[in-house]
């Protein structure tokens, strides 16, 4: 099924998506659209389906039913992780996942947008990546002074930033960022919000987060997920005064 013409200006389009794991409905008739250049925060209690939704968008999990379109025309449900990543969808994991036995610079080097095949990595362009490209990214995420350190030796917050840097290096159209400030200090959290707002100027971004102060800082539209579908959508003020949201998520 091809979505109607009006939706071709969306960067991400999910409709009627469901996914069941052993009888547990992780995603239930979920509909969500994201416009080009938009930043969206997704909140919701544990088990609301946030990570499963990310898994479906990035090809890790196939939905039982429903449409998932990227850029209005590309059906993501038929593609694998590598193809989807190469289309321009980058993902940051909930637990910071960097290549621990590589240096910070090499982490960025591997993420940089370029040919991805083994041939290129053995003999070709992949071996001739200009150091300036790596430095540029490391400056944005403020890890330039750490470029020769092993990623394993970074602090938790620095790893989160390195992973965001790897995401930027991929130069994706859409960034999916899962809990970027988990385990960060208040100052780091504020810095991360600033960084994401900067990134959102020329990328579409989806941020999953629990930290309400951080979500407020992001200053964008908020979608509340509950039991695998959308409970509410709107500004942070609108959703945080929504009765049902208060009931299931924010708590009384």
């Amino acid at each position, binding site marked *: 099924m091809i979505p109607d013409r009006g939706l071709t200006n969306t960067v991400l389009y999910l409709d009627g998506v469901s996914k069941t794991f052993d009888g547990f409905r992780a995603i239930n008739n979920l509909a969500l659209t994201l416009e080009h250049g938009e930043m969206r925060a997704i909140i919701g209690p544990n088990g609301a389906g946030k990570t499963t939704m990310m898994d479906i968008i*990035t090809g*890790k999990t196939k939905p039982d039913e429903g449409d998932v379109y990227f850029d209005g025309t590309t059906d993501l449900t038929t593609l*694998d*992780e*590598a193809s989807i*990543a*190469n289309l321009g969808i*980058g*993902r940051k*994991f909930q637990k910071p*996942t*960097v*290549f*621990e*036995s*590589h*240096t910070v*610079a*090499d982490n*960025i*080097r*591997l*993420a940089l947008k370029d040919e*991805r*095949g*083994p041939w290129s*990595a*053995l*003999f070709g362009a*992949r*071996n*001739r*990546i*200009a*150091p*300036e490209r*790596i*430095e540029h990214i*490391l400056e944005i995420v403020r890890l*330039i*002074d*750490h*470029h*020769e*350190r*092993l990623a394993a*030796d970074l602090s938790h917050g620095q790893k989160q930033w390195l992973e965001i840097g*790897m995401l930027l290096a*991929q130069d994706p159209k859409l960034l999916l960022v899962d809990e970027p400030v988990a385990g960060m200090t208040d100052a780091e959290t504020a810095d991360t919000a600033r960084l994401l707002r900067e990134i959102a100027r020329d990328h579409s971004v989806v941020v999953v987060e629990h930290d309400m102060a951080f979500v407020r800082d992001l200053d964008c539209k908020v979608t509340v997920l509950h039991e695998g579908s959308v409970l509410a959508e709107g500004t942070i003020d609108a959703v945080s005064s929504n009765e049902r949201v208060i009931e299931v998520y924010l708590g009384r």
Partner: protein
Amino acid sequence: MSGAGTNSMGRRPLLLSLIDGKGWIFLAVVAAAAVLVPLLNLAVPEGSAFHVPTYVVALLGKYLCYALLALALDLVWGYCGILSLGHGAFFALGGYAMGMYLMRQIGPRGVYANPLLPDFMVFLNWKELPWYWHGFDSFPFAALMVLLVPGLLALVFGWLAFRSRVTGVYLSIMTQAMTFALLLAFFRNDMGFGGNNGLTDFKDILGFNVQAQTTRCALFVATAIALVLGYLVARYMVTSTYGKVLVAIRDAESRTRFLGYRVETYKVVAFVVSAMMAGVAGALYVPQVGIINPSEFSPANSIEAVIWVAVGGRGTLVGAALGAVLVNFGKTYLTGALPEIWLFALGLLFVVVTLFLPKGIVGLLTQKRQQRQEISPRDESLAAEAGIGEAGAVEGGKA
């Protein structure tokens, strides 16, 4: 601070950027052995204390074959996390390809003096040569098969396993099953590979008597050259960006996928190259030991190879080769002196290495050197400059 890419490849001449300190030591030792061993065998008279007997030349040649097998295994296990418990299969297939060539060289000099068929086929009352034996009278053809047969098996096996994302213990068990299946198949007489007895009674290789002292020395040198070439190929692979992707796959496979890398292709390439290296090792092994039979496929052989790599240090290449030579030296000594304790000693060695030397001998030496470097003043100032200060800064951690 200098640029982020100062340690990237392509700035220095290829060979220099390829080989690190321990690599040079390794190359020097292998080169010295390649010169000295034949020299001390051929030029020094037998009575002299410096004379190396011919049987020792063949024994050392065997160790070098094992070193090449270990190197091949380290490429996939140490760098890509593929714990193959079936690499002996690729080694044996390369060995059989060479064995078939050597069988064809016997010609009419066999016990049955049949000019067309090897002895075991005459014995089984076969009338003509099976189709897959054709071509093996030519050395270039056999040499090609030494690479192609293990490579093709690795390609098919790897493609099926890695595409289905079989990893970890499951993959190890499958590789083990693969070599066991081949063991059973090669035991069968009707497979046409000599069954239980395998292939033996070799006479000539490239026109030279395989038993002759000079041929033994030439085979030893050829093995040393193959080991050096294998090291250079593996080293080129692991120092290129390809190698960095392999390590990335080893440490965080799904992260690598989400970066857009086709993990299965990377794994298949490494697996095939590794299988070919193992095949070459097997091919050089057979003329030096004079026999190839199905026991080379036995799962225990493959597991032993894993122990060599673990002892020497996985993910170091040089360590794998060192481990193979040391453990086999120990095996030769112990099976001679106290044959009943060898297997216990091997098991104990594996346990000790796993518990106390997770990075093997080479890993331990590297660690010791780094600890010394860390307290040197130059590194202290560097660490302070980068605002690190604590001992976590391992400069050039995985050199």
